[in-house]
Each structure stands twice: as structure tokens, then as C-alpha cells.
């Protein structure tokens, strides 16, 4: 990171202009487009969905895709297209919200812990080490076993599982930056702790943080869907894609479409976010070399 010589605001601005390079890498451009598309569908979902997520029509159960039901209907006569569409909002809200909360907590803890150092830093890092000694999915399952299965539990689980990871990454960047001249200068000028952390150090953390956020986000989507599939996360009748796959498995020979459309949606979304995260990695890591 030898290029960080400018003042804080210009580093922030450079970060934003770097983000635009996402569209220069074809795979990243594809991934970002997929993500933006899903985001748009999620936002518009409630307006463009032809049916409600749990609107049942027993007469029209198990119908193959047609002009009336684009993705067919499931064993309860619910419109699969509407459920997949509304499910986009559900999964992006949960995994995006969980990721953002974890990134906020992790950044705050990582900045403070890394900058202040001392016994507090030592204590926090040892605690996080032992949390990370548990495989993420195990910790998630254990917590859900105690909190009970619900969307809120899934959100809490994501924050607890991802905060230590983000905090560690942020802290390692802080440690490498805090002895640099511009931080030293700010301290000698008597700037407040908040100013030093957020205006001086944070801009240097942003590239790493962007990559980490994207990676966590893709794992988060994966986690929310997997927990839904296992039946320990979001509960029926929510249009969670993992849960839809689980329910449709029982009737796969009669209503294969009820399984393949949500399964396809989750696959495309995760691949898209993965490609976007990979693009961010390429943009920011080439700069570090």
C-alpha cells in the first residue's frame, strides 16, 4: 500500500473511482450486473408479482408452467414465479442486512481494538479466536438451536458469526497503517480519536473492507438458503428459496418446476455475487503488490 500518501479525502475518492473499474473485468461486470438485476427485482417484487406469496388455489395446484403461471404452481397451488420473485427480496434483505450489521460491528471493533492495542485488544482477539475455532456453520446451528428458528435468529447468527472475521481483517490493516506518518501527524495535532479512526485510518481500510463485505455477502446468501433448506432458519410459509427447495423435494416427480426455479435463482445469485467479489479482489489486490 505504498501509494497511500495523499490526504484522507482523496484516498476516499480514489476508492470510489476504483470501484468503477469493476466493469472493466468481464466476469466481474457480469457478476455485478446479475446482482443489480436481482436487487431491482427484489425492490420491484411486491409491485410486479402477479400473485401473493401465500395465495393458495387448490383447484390450480401442481400446474405446469403456462402463460397464467410462468413458473407453474406448487403442491399447495401457490404461484412459483411470485414466490421466487418475493423470495429475492427476502434473501437479499436477510443476508444483506446481516452482512451490513456484521461489517459495521466488525469495523468499529477492529478499528478500536487495533488502534488502541493493549490488554483490551488482546482480550477481544482471544475471544474471537476461540469463536473462530468453531466452524461457522456449527456455530450458526448451535445458536439457532438455542434462539429457536426464525428470521430474526438468522440475522443475529450472521452478526455473531461474521463480526469476528471482519474485525480481524480490519484490525490487521489498522496495525499496518497506524505507525504511518499521516496517522502520527494527526495524533500530534491533537485530533480526536473519532477523527483519527474514521477520517485518517478508515480510508486505508476501505479497499480491504469492500472485498471482505462482498465475500461475506456471498457466504451470507449461501448460509440463509442452506439454513432454510435444513429447516432450522426461516420458517414456512416464507418464500425463502432454500425452504422452497426443501418443500418441493417431497413432490419433485409431480412439480419439478417448484424445485428447479428457486434452486436456479439461488445459484445464479450466488455465482453473480461471487464473480463480483472476485472482481473486487483483483482490483484492489493488484494495487497492493
Amino acid at each position, binding site marked *: 500500500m505504498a501509494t497511500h500518501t495523499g490526504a484522507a479525502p482523496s484516498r476516499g475518492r480514489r476508492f470510489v473511482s476504483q470501484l468503477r473499474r469493476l466493469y472493466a473485468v468481464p466476469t466481474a461486470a457480469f457478476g455485478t450486473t446479475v446482482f443489480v438485476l436481482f436487487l431491482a427485482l427484489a425492490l420491484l417484487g411486491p409491485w410486479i408479482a402477479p400473485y401473493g406469496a401465500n395465495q393458495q388455489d387448490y383447484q390450480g395446484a401442481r400446474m405446469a408452467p403456462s402463460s397464467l403461471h410462468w413458473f407453474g404452481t406448487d403442491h399447495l397451488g401457490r404461484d412459483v414465479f411470485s414466490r421466487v420473485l418475493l423470495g429475492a427480496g427476502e434473501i437479499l434483505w436477510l443476508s444483506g442486512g446481516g452482512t451490513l450489521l456484521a461489517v459495521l460491528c466488525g469495523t468499529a471493533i477492529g478499528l478500536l481494538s487495533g488502534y488502541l492495542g493493549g490488554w483490551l485488544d488482546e482480550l477481544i482477539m482471544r475471544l474471537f479466536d476461540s469463536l473462530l475455532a*468453531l*466452524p461457522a456453520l456449527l456455530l450458526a446451528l*448451535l445458536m439457532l438451536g*438455542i434462539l429457536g428458528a426464525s428470521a430474526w435468529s438468522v440475522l443475529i447468527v450472521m452478526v455473531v458469526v461474521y463480526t469476528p472475521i471482519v474485525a480481524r481483517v480490519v484490525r490487521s490493516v489498522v496495525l499496518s497503517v497506524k505507525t504511518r506518518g499521516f496517522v502520527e501527524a494527526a495524533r500530534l495535532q491533537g485530533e480526536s480519536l473519532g477523527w483519527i479512526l474514521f477520517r485518517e485510518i478508515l480510508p486505508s481500510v476501505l479497499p480491504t473492507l469492500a472485498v471482505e463485505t462482498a465475500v461475506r455477502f456471498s457466504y451470507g446468501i449461501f448460509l440463509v438458503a442452506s439454513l432454510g*433448506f435444513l429447516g*432450522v432458519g426461516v420458517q414456512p410459509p416464507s418464500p425463502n428459496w*432454500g425452504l422452497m427447495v*426443501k418443500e418441493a423435494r417431497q413432490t419433485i416427480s409431480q412439480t419439478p418446476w417448484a424445485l428447479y426455479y428457486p434452486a436456479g435463482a439461488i*445459484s445464479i445469485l450466488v*455465482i453473480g455475487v461471487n464473480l463480483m467479489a472476485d472482481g473486487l479482489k483483483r482490483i484492489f489486490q493488484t494495487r497492493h503488490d
Partner: protein
Amino acid sequence: MLGYSLRRLGFLLLTVLLTSVIIFSVTQWLPGDVCRIILGREAGEKALDACRQDLGLEAPLPVQYLRWLADFSGGDWGQSFSTRTDIFPLVMQRLLNSLRLAVLTLLISVPLAVGLGVLAGLNEGKLVDNLISIGSLSVVGLPEFVTGILLIQLFSFELRRWGLPSLPANSSIRPEAGFVESLPSLILPAITATLVLLAYIARLTRSGVLEEMKQSYVRTADLKGLPRHIVVVRHILPNALLPTITVIAISFGWLISGLVVIENVFNYPGLGRLLVFAIDRRDLPLMQAVALVTVVGFALANLVADLVYALLNPRIRYTEGN
């Protein structure tokens, strides 16, 4: 080396101890009274008191923790709330099943992944490399439950429809079945897990190869006229594969939990399915036992990774020793 190993072992014990505190205290938050859960809503105050006495719930928490830890290390894991049977034999049997699946997965995925990674690394930027990285990025994105169900459709239902020999769709073998008996049921779950691991190991192998190709000793070997394949096999690979060894050991630990979803897709009686079962029933002792066993397995895999790495790379044990 001995000093290094002992230090690592001490570190492992410390980690396991700390996580055992976490597991114990996390399960203390469970809303409601454990005895209420065991005895049901209609239980009288007297029965509840007796039950609490029985389980030692009157004692202060640190004492309860120490008792729990002592019982656990002594092999007395108590009884499951939901099955009313001893936990120890149940967990051990499921652990064995999960280990079988994990070992088979590694046997398939490691040679394949290392091969693909080396191929991609040696052809950096060319078509082969791009195909492998796009392929692995896409496979990484597919959740295990999607790939698992697709594989079942393909290799079980479709093959059977065409009258061809097919693999079982349901891997719910008898829990005490032997390895040979359960092998056909293991193939599809193992392939599913392979798809997850493949991309991960291949990408790390690729970057290891790229890293080594930049080194000056490789240029020296090239310039002194050694044929390319000898440079690759004798000089690049031994160094490039070092980090991969660590990764393989870590993936073994990862597999223990990564298999949770796969075991549930295939109804395979492993540790992961037992955990989901325990969570469904809110079976506290069973949850604790499965979690601790998993943590110990995870930590052991990490220990093996560290030791093998130090054995092969003297720089590590010397710098850490001083």
C-alpha cells in the same frame, strides 16, 4: 521440532478448552428450565426439584461446568433427552460414518483439484486457465443442496428410467453398516462434497504455482537449459504444494461441518444429520456433545496441518522456536 509440537499441542488444548466454555455457556441461555423440558409441562414442583438435584443444577455455574467437563473427558456423556439412550455410542457411530464420507471425498477431490490447479497455474492467462477459474467460481456458487439434488436426479432417477445401473438416491444406510456395504451410498454425497472443495483447493494450488514460477531459482533452472517438465516436477511443485498440504488438512476440518447440508440432502446418518436432529428436538446434551466432537476434530485437523507443514518447511519451526 519436539518443542514446536508441544507448543502446538498446548495451543490446541487451550483452544478446545475455551470453545468448551463457549459451548457450555451458550447452552445456558436456553430459555426455560431444562427439567421442564425433560419432564414436560405437567410436572409438579416436587418432581422438578428432584430432577434438578439429579442433574446437579443447584450448584453454581462454574462448578456445573467443571463437572460437565470432567464427565465429558471421562466418556460419560449422559443421555439424550429425545432418544433416551446413551449419547457416547450414538455420537461415535455417527462420527465414524462422517469420517468415512470425508475420507472418500478427500481421496477423490485432492488429486483432481491439485491436478487442475497445477494445470491452470502453468498456463496462466491461457484458455485452460480461464476455463478452470470460471468453472471453479461457478461451482463454488452452487449450494450443496442444489448440486446434491441435481446429482440424485441425474445419476439415480434418470439412469433408472433408462434401465441403466443407477446409484441409490437415498443414502440412509443402517448406521452400523460396514464400509463396503455403504460404498454405493457414499459415492453421490462424496461427489457433491468434492464439487465444493475442488474449486477451493484448485485456486490455492494455482496461486502457489504462480508464486513459485516468479522465483529466481526457477529462472536459473530454465536458463541452465533444464527441460520444462523437469523444472516443473523437481523445482516448482515441491514448493508450490506446501501451502496446499495445510489447506487439505484444514478442509478436512471444514468437511466435518460442510457435510451437514450434504448429509441432510442424502439422508446419510452422519454427525451433521444428528446435529440437525438434536436442534429440531432442542436436545441440549446431544447438541453439546456433537459440537464438542466437531470442535476437537477441527482443532486436530489444524494441528496436523501445522505439524506437517513444519516438518516439510524448516523455516517455520526455526523462526517460531526463537
